[in-house]
């Protein structure tokens, strides 16, 4: 992490001991008693201090657990980047109430926001003010971001701040997914219609669009579409075009009209580049060849929407794909395109999609209908994002969208489930193909294939969780086994598990599906094989052995110190596994060795005790010998039991012989005595 402290998992202190000051990685001190209202771009922000350099005037923005910060921006930007509240570092630290949180540290805003939240109107800015204080500094900052391959995606009046000199500074946009908190008014309609978390990094042209809306708002002195539902804002933008919808009942200064028209162009390629905006005189001369959408003579009634052109039809299909697909299958849509809109080419291409739909599934096949709707939207409006099951996202926003809707992933009809369906159907690949690269497997199609492969991968290394962590480098592990601690990197896991074990919050098996998916995403792909053995339905003894193996290797790899509490918990859970040793003497010796290894906190030693193949083989061989000996003993005992009569006969014979021998002996003695006498 560039300039970031090396953070460990933020421990969960007792609620009564909630700190007033919190420290990020031993460097940035966060004063939780000094919240900075409106400074965090929609997120809570607190005054902070760099202990290393003694620099004051910083702020720490607290991220949301389900909305991870932007890893690329945190890595690429440097504190010297102009016109920005560039990040200085990030990491975990106890937040308000002692709850662990992930903070992004950046300079505090140099002044108040341009337009504090809740303010109805302000004094309209003059053209000179707009050019000098807003457009030029913002354009320079955007050009700087563009040079880094980054975007801002949080340009709105409440997140722009003025320096004492008057120039505007772009606020913090790194602590949440791109455009997460952007109102629909400040985003192009094709972005605004997406899930807030799924808007993606976008392009610098989207920032230019947002800057254009801010410029118009400041020029008019009122917030555009204040109080209007987002759905209605998007509809108006699509129906009338962004510039026309924004300025339909207002007059802009003449010098700004062309500039605003260019910045609010529907096609991103037509918006001026930031470098061009830095010189408004040149940008103003840029003419936008806006294509007016062809309007039909009669509208098409769609569920909840009346379409007058192909763009509105695409939007209607995107909102209600299954109902729209039914209409399409009935021939209503292509008939309207041919007769109402009088676009025979478009109608023919829709008919082609319908023929393909017939080949792909039965009449009421919802999956085939969703694919049909997605392809139709891509065909009718090439600027539209991928739309699947009523949900729209940009492909690079999939990760944040999955993270933002993780809790509803299992809910029927929820956005999380819809997104999972999109990945499972390789919908983004289908969208890319419908966009025009049907013949060549473009990067997006390959990406969609790889994402599906992760989703359907067997065991805990696959599935929604794996995809979520794979696509979000700074998403904290959601496992309940961590007892509320924040674990963002693989190296943070073991200390968190140790703390959970110490607090007796750890279950019998520390690793669950969430942690395994998290580890699989955070570790090198070569180490995935270690995790592949962990899955549901494993025998408990086998499962705990695999868990110890994974954790031991992680301990060795991350150079984590002794973990006595975790080792003790694992030893307790693994004790039944020693029952596999049939020999009592060996088992007792192993139990003793297990306790010694647990006491040392060395998971490798614990693994060596549990995974002793030679001992297991010796145990099995000795068991076989013991069974054979027991069998022989049983046979001998049975023979003894059955040999009573035989022994009686032998005893009788022996007795008779003894008696006879006694007689002979007596006779011999008597004879000898007689002879001697």
């Amino acid at each position: 992490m560039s300039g970031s402290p090396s953070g460990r998992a933020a421990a969960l202190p007792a609620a009564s001991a909630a700190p007033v000051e919190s420290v990020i990685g031993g460097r940035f001190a966060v004063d939780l008693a000094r919240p900075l209202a409106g400074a965090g771009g929609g997120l809570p922000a607190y005054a902070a201090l760099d202990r290393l350099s003694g620099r004051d005037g910083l702020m720490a923005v607290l991220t949301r657990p389900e909305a991870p910060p932007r890893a690329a921006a945190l890595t690429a930007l440097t504190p010297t980047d102009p016109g920005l509240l560039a990040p200085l570092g990030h990491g975990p630290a106890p937040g308000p109430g002692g709850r662990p949180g992930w903070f992004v540290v950046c300079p505090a805003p140099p002044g108040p926001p341009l337009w504090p939240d809740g303010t109805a109107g302000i004094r309209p800015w003059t053209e000179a003010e707009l050019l000098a204080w807003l457009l030029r500094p913002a354009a320079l900052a955007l050009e700087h971001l563009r040079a880094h391959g980054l975007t801002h995606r949080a340009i709105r009046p409440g997140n722009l701040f003025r320096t004492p000199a008057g120039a505007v500074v772009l606020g913090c946009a790194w602590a949440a997914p791109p455009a997460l908190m952007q109102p629909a008014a400040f985003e192009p309609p094709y972005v605004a219609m997406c899930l807030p978390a799924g808007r993606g990094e976008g392009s610098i042209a989207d920032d230019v669009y947002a800057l254009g809306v801010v410029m118009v708002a400041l020029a008019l002195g009122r917030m555009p579409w204040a109080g209007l539902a987002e759905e209605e804002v998007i509809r108006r933008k699509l129906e009338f075009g962004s510039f026309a919808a924004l300025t339909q009942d207002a007059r802009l200064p003449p010098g700004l009209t062309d500039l605003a028209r260019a910045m609010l162009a529907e096609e991103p390629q037509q918006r001026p580049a930031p470098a061009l905006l830095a010189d408004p005189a040149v940008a103003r001369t840029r003419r936008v060849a806006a294509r007016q959408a062809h309007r039909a003579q009669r509208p098409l009634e769609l569920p909840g929407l009346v379409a007058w052109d192909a763009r509105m039809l695409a939007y209607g299909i995107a909102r209600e794909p299954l109902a729209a697909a039914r209409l399409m299958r009935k021939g209503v849509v292509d008939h309207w395109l041919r007769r109402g809109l009088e676009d025979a080419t478009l109608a023919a291409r829709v008919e082609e999609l319908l023929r393909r739909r017939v080949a792909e599934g039965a009449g009421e096949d919802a999956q085939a209908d969703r694919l049909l709707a997605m392809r139709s939207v891509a065909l009718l409006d090439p600027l539209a994002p991928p739309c699947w099951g009523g949900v729209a996202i940009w492909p690079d926003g999939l990760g944040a969208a999955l993270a933002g809707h993780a809790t509803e992933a299992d809910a029927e009809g929820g956005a999380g489930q819809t997104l999972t369906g999109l990945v499972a159907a390789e919908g983004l690949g289908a969208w890319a193909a419908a966009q025009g690269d049907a013949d060549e497997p473009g990067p997006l199609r390959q990406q969609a294939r790889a994402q599906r492969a992760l989703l359907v991968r067997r065991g805990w290394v696959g599935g929604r969780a794996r995809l979520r962590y794979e696509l979000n480098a700074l998403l904290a592990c959601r496992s309940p086994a961590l007892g509320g601690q924040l674990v963002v990197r693989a190296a943070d896991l073991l200390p968190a598990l140790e703390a959970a074990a110490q607090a007796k919050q750890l279950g019998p098996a520390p690793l669950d599906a969430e942690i395994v998916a998290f580890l699989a995403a955070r570790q090198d792909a070569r180490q995935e094989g270690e995790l592949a053995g962990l899955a549901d339905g494993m025998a408990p003894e086998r499962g705990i052995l695999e868990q110890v193996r994974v954790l031991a290797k992680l301990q060795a790899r991350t150079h984590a110190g002794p973990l006595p509490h975790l080792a003790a918990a694992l030893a307790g859970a693994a004790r039944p596994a020693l029952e596999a040793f049939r020999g009592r003497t060996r088992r007792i010796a192993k139990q003793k060795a297990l306790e010694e290894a647990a006491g040392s906190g060395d998971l490798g030693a614990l693994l060596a005790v549990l995974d002793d193949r030679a001992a297991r083989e010796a145990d099995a061989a000795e068991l076989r010998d013991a069974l054979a000996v027991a069998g022989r003993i049983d046979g001998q005992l049975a023979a003894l039991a059955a040999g009573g009569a035989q022994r009686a006969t032998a005893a009788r014979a022996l007795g008779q012989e003894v008696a006879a021998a006694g007689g002979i002996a007596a006779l011999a003695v008597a004879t000898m005595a007689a002879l001697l006498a």
Partner: protein
Amino acid sequence: MSGQVKARGRGSGLWLGGLACGAVITLATPTAVLAGLLLAPAGLAWVLDRAPDRPTARPMLLCGLAATVQPMATLWLTGHGMETALATAADLATLAVAWAAQAAGWLLSELAPFVAGLAIEARARARGAKLRAERRRLEEEWGLPAAEPPTP
């Protein structure tokens, strides 16, 4: 086949025994009289003991013979007369010793199998106990199911 051979052998033995007895009675009548009186219990046992090898009569006879050696030697050393034979047989002490010896022989034939049986059984029990102890050790060490060894 072997049964027939044995029966034939027994028959010839009986015939030879009878011949010998007849010869002794004819040629040494005092000896036969003295032996017959002193060994009367053994002779009776010999007749009554129908078991093969006469396990009861044989020790009686052998013990009786041991007690008869001395009176017989006295008879032969004193002229081998009938009066001496009858006098010796009438001597209660001599008769008692001879008959007591045969009684001891009978007792020996009865007790010896019993004592031998006790010894053999004790040895079997000791071996069974040792085997059961070894099995219990294996059961405890290896968790084997406890067997119900039949008691000998």
